């Protein structure tokens, strides 16, 4: 409700009829003066950099001198074709990073959404006490430093670390998390007897990776990063769900109980439809966020083992700052930028479509109660 209260006045016309006359005379100048510092900072460090990087992605700059002199070779779209069409290590690495990130997204987004919703439902239960404490406990990991938390998880998932000790209590021999490059899907196939890949899958595949490689699933090393991220992000999304659940009218829930609906039916046909906009928000924010995973990879694995935790964000950094191939690094950034902007546009589009009927609905219940 708070968000609606903040958003509502935005739709009213900016100036009331009273706002005329002398005291408003110099607002043109004052207005620009007030926004000037932000324009300078954001322009210099967000917009200008994007243009500069676009230029660099079309060159072969190696980090020496300025990239904006005539001496830097202009290579056109070469850096981009190296990522998509030219056979070679550049494409192999890039496609591997895309594969890794797809599996990462495919697990992180559904898992954190389900966990966030589950936790919100339990915390929102009217019969339980101590909600405040539990809400804070679940949310706390989200506010801490990603680097500091990654250090903790390095220790938890170490070979003789807490996770493996815990697994040991159940008689499970834990893997060597950060040196295990085997894909989870390959491992699963192994348990049903498929140890050697069928020839049909190793012969070829799209973009320089074999089908067998594409179908590897996240590596064991990646699983530890996935656990960390689900653990840190669920709390934030739980808060969004909590805000949404608190807006579901209690009367509706009670009414459906009297009508004989089971708990599952009530959840499925009353609660879930009511919080659909939030689910959509959580899913898309999750999608957008999980294409940006960087800090955890940097601290925990640096793309290892065997490049199975390489992500486009980390690869672009490494290509530029470790291999000094700034052109290709910038090109990778732009492809990633495109992916994320596309997701954002889709999200804003659908949210805008949904917003109207939702607003009207709030207003109606507001008048009714």
């Amino acid at each position, binding site marked *: 409700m708070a*968000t609606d*209260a*903040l958003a509502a006045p*935005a739709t009213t016309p900016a100036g*009331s009829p*009273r706002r005329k006359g002398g005291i408003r005379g*110099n*607002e*043109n100048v*004052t207005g620009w003066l*007030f*926004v000037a*510092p*932000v324009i300078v*900072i*954001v322009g*210099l460090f*967000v917009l200008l*950099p*994007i243009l*500069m990087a676009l230029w660099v992605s079309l060159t072969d700059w190696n980090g020496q001198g*300025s990239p*904006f002199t005539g001496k830097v070779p202009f290579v056109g779209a070469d850096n981009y074709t190296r990522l998509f069409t030219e056979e070679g290590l550049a494409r192999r690495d890039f496609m591997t990073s895309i594969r890794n990130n797809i599996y990462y997204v495919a697990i992180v987004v559904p898992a954190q959404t389900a966990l966030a919703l589950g936790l919100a439902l*339990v915390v929102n239960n009217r*019969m*339980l006490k101590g909600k405040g404490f539990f809400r804070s*406990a*679940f949310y*706390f990991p989200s*506010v*801490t*430093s*990603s*680097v*500091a*938390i*990654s*250090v*903790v*998880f390095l*220790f938890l998932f170490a070979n003789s670390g*807490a996770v493996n*000790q815990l697994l040991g209590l159940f008689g499970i021999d834990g893997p060597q998390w950060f040196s295990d490059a085997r894909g989870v899907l390959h491992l699963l196939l192994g348990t049903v007897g498929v140890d050697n890949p069928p020839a049909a899958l190793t012969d070829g595949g799209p973009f320089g990776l074999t089908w067998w490689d594409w179908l590897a699933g996240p590596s064991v090393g990646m699983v530890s990063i996935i656990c960390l991220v689900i*653990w840190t992000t669920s709390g934030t999304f739980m808060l*969004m769900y909590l*805000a949404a659940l608190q807006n579901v009218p209690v009367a509706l829930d009670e*009414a459906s109980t009297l009508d004989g609906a089971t708990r599952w039916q009530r959840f499925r046909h009353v609660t879930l439809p009511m919080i659909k906009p939030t689910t959509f*928000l959580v899913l898309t924010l999750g999608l957008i966020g999980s*294409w*940006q995973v*960087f800090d955890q990879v*940097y601290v925990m694995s640096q793309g290892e083992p065997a490049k199975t935790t390489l992500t486009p*964000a980390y690869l672009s*950094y490494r290509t530029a700052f470790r291999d000094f191939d700034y052109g290709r*690094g*910038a090109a990778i*950034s732009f492809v*990633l930028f495109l992916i*994320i902007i596309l997701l954002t546009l889709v*999200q804003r589009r659908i949210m805008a479509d949904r917003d109207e009927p939702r607003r009207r609905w709030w207003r109606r219940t507001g008048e009714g109660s």
Partner: protein
Amino acid sequence: MAVLTERPAAPVRRRDRGARTLVNRFLGYAVLVFFALVFLYPFVIQLGNSLKTQEGAAANPLSPFPDPLTFAGFERIFAGTNFPLWLGNSLLVTVLVTLGRVFFDSLAGYALARLRFRGRAGLFAAVIAVMAVPGVVLLIPKFLVLNQLGIYNSYAGLIVPLIADAAGVFIMKQFFESIPVSVEEAARIDGASVFRTFWSVVLPMARPALITLTILSFQGSWNEFPHSLVSVQDPHLFTLPRGLADLVSGSLGKGTQYPLKLGAALLATIPVAVLFMIFQRYFVRGANEGADKG
């Protein structure tokens, strides 16, 4: 509601429901406690192991009780690493960035909410657009600009790019629009300048939003890692997250000295943790603010 539930079938159903409620409650608490452990126990382990010897941490990492207990890890943090320096840098960066954001973002937010000037609508659209730019794709671009401006590897490069942000402008604009205009109008009619009105009439009314923004900025810049990665190179300019990352991946190598690393990470977590305990509801507000802007 009470009236509604009084139906003929109620007596039978109610006893039934009483038992079910008890089971539900028990299950509810079981789930809550289990997940509270999942979310908090890693911090307990972190604290426990930072006080262990290296052998103790390797032998029984799951136990929160150090045996034998030692402060050797913490002593080495202060004697053997640049931790105090990183701490100082982090404090400097965080304080300046937070002050800058609170001031500049409120100014711009106020202008966008209240002042009528040419290009205002376009500017607001730009703010919304900039919020969608993902931070990680700016790594190389930011480095290019800092390099070109000659402030790469300096405090200026570490701080200046962060002292204003689009999300903060958005939060402040939304808040200013929610407070009534009449008070400022009165001040303006009394002859106060726009800045004067903003500074001594509007800002004091905006306390909740200012606290939210202060906290978001503090937390954001204290935890900021990628920016320090591409803006400085000199170890003397490292902030805490950068120093920690260096400690883990660089100088000490992997797999060793866990008590020290965990201790350093713990110390880096404490300021935000304390802030979180005191200003929790503002953190919650900030999170939902983030949801709104999406």
